[in-house]
């Protein structure tokens, strides 16, 4: 590939790496972000629990449904 390993590419990569590092250093992960994540995870977990409960409630009566009595042999 003709564009690989050019001087400009190496310098831009170095700049990108430094800028991302510098930005991360200037902006440590704030509590607000962690709180947002915790809320979203908790809400998603509650949605899943609710969905599981609904599914098992729907299935419940079907499981409890009594079996039909077997038909007697007609050959007799």
């Amino acid at each position, binding site marked *: 590939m003709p564009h690989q390993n050019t*001087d400009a*590419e190496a310098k831009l990569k170095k*700049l990108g790496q430094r800028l991302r590092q510098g930005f991360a250093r200037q902006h440590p*992960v704030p509590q607000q972000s962690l709180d947002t*994540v*915790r809320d979203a995870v908790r809400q998603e977990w509650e949605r899943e629990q609710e969905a599981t409960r609904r599914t098992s409630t729907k299935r419940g009566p079907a499981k409890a449904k009594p079996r039909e009595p077997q038909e007697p042999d007609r050959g007799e």
Partner: protein
Amino acid sequence: MEQLIKLVRTYRLTAGLAERLTLAEEVFRLIEPELRFFVFGSLTRPAAEDVLQEVLRGVATGMGKFAGDTTAEFWGWCYRIARNKVNDHLRKQAADRLQPMPPEELRQLAESSAQASPLSPEDKHDLEIALALLARSKPECRDFLWQHFVIGLDYTEIADERNLSYDAARMKIGRCLDEAQALIS
């Protein structure tokens, strides 16, 4: 960064809330700074902070259903969410689009990185040249070079964002790089 995808895989398999919260915190301590850089590089404040929180909420909500299996796929998925949230916001508030960061601000960021690993005179020289390259590139090329080299988006992610084929994105960045190279040759 293999650690990242291991955490995400474990998260997907974890049913308990307490374990999920712990894993999610570990994941977001790794990805929040880069997502923040992406959003704050696209929007003015204070809109950027609100949009970032929406991005984090989107990633946290969908992480259990993330279908990929590699670090690159996970980053691609995260950036897709971030890009969509940024674009949604810009459709409503075009005035919040951030103009390119001034060189002085970029220099300060680069210098902040020196606290972790010092900048040699050669590094400083290279960074000045790279800053000059970005400043002298045509606006379209500057955007491509910024997204690829500074934000760290790969060709697939850039192609996705700009409705280009993978090859078209690769060629475009290649041509911009050639032009940038010509500026320092």
